[in-house]
C-alpha cells in the first residue's frame, strides 16, 4: 500500500519559502498567484498493513516523526490500495 502524507506549516506560522516563491512568481509576471505555501510530501510504501492498521500507523508516524506539531500540521491519504 502506498500512502501520501502532506506536511505544511500551520497557518499562523510565517512561511518564508512560500513567500519567496510567491515573489519570484510575481517578478515573472504571474500576477494571478495570490499566495503560496510550501510544504513537504512523503510517500510511504507500506508492506503487509491493512487499511485499518494504516489508519493508526500513519498518523502516528506523521505526528511522532514527520511533522513538528509546534509549527506544522499534516494530512494524509492512501494513494495505492495495494
Amino acid at each position, binding site marked *: 500500500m502506498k500512502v501520501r502524507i502532506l506536511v505544511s506549516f500551520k497557518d499562523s*506560522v510565517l512561511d*518564508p519559502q512560500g513567500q*519567496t516563491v510567491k515573489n519570484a512568481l510575481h517578478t515573472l509576471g504571474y500576477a494571478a498567484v495570490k499566495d503560496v505555501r510550501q510544504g513537504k510530501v512523503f510517500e510511504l510504501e507500506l508492506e503487509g498493513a491493512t487499511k485499518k492498521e494504516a489508519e493508526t500507523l500513519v498518523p502516528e508516524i506523521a505526528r*511522532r*516523526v*514527520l511533522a*513538528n506539531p*509546534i*509549527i506544522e500540521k499534516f494530512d494524509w491519504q492512501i494513494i495505492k490500495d495495494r
Partner: protein
Amino acid sequence: MKFGVVQFPGSNCDFDTFHVLRNVMKRETALLWHKDHDLQGVDCVVLPGGFSYGDYLRSGAIARFSPLMQEVKAFARAGGHVLGICNGFQILLELGLLPGAMIRNKNLKFLCQHVRIRIENEKTDFTRAGRKGQVLRIPIAHFDGNYYAPARVLKDIERHRQVVFRYCDAEGNITEEANVNGSLGNIAGIRNREGNVLGLMPHPERASEALLGSEDGRTIFASLILSLERRKPARRPVRRERARHD
C-alpha cells in the same frame, strides 16, 4: 568537572567542541557515542553543531530518537546540565527539552558570519561569568536558526526570563538589522525554566581562541565551569517543558 560531547552521525562540531573544552578550557572531556546508553559520569552534556542525519527531515528531528538521547533526557530532568549549540539547540527543541522550533533563515540562505549577542540574563549557570547587557561577538553558521514559538509560549518564555541571548548590534541595541535570521524577539539562545538546559545558535567554540578572532565564547564555558565546580549540581527534579513526542 567533566564535560561530555555527544557525537551523532552528521555532527561536525564535535571535535571542535571537544578541542576547546579539553585544550582551551582544560577540563576533562569525553566523546559520547549516540548509540551508547552511557553518559560516562559527565557533569555537563554538550550537544554540538553539525548536520545530524544530514538535517534531512528537519534540523535535529532524527537525532532526538537516538539511544543516548533518552539518557540525556533523563539526565536533564534530574537537573543535569545540558548545552545545545546550533544543531544541538535544534535537537533540544525537537526533543522538547526547550520550547519552540526553528525555521529557515529569513533570507533562505545558509549564514556563516560573526554576529553580536547580548547577555539578557547573567544569572544563569551558563552566563554567570558575564555581565548583564554584555555584548559577545560569536560566529553563527546555520540554515535553520529562525526561532519561532507560538505567542502564548513566547510570552511564557519572556516572563520566566528564559531568553538568555538576543542578536544585537555592536552597541548592544536589539535591532531588526541585527536579527540576521529573522528570529522572534531576536532570540539567539534560551534556557529551560529550571535553568539547567541552554540552547543557542551561535558557536561559542568558534570564539574561544584569540587566533580565531574572538574569545567571547569562553564566557559560556567559563560560566559552566564556575557554576559546576563551585557546587556539585543539586539533582532536583525538573518539570517537563512543553511535553510532546513520545
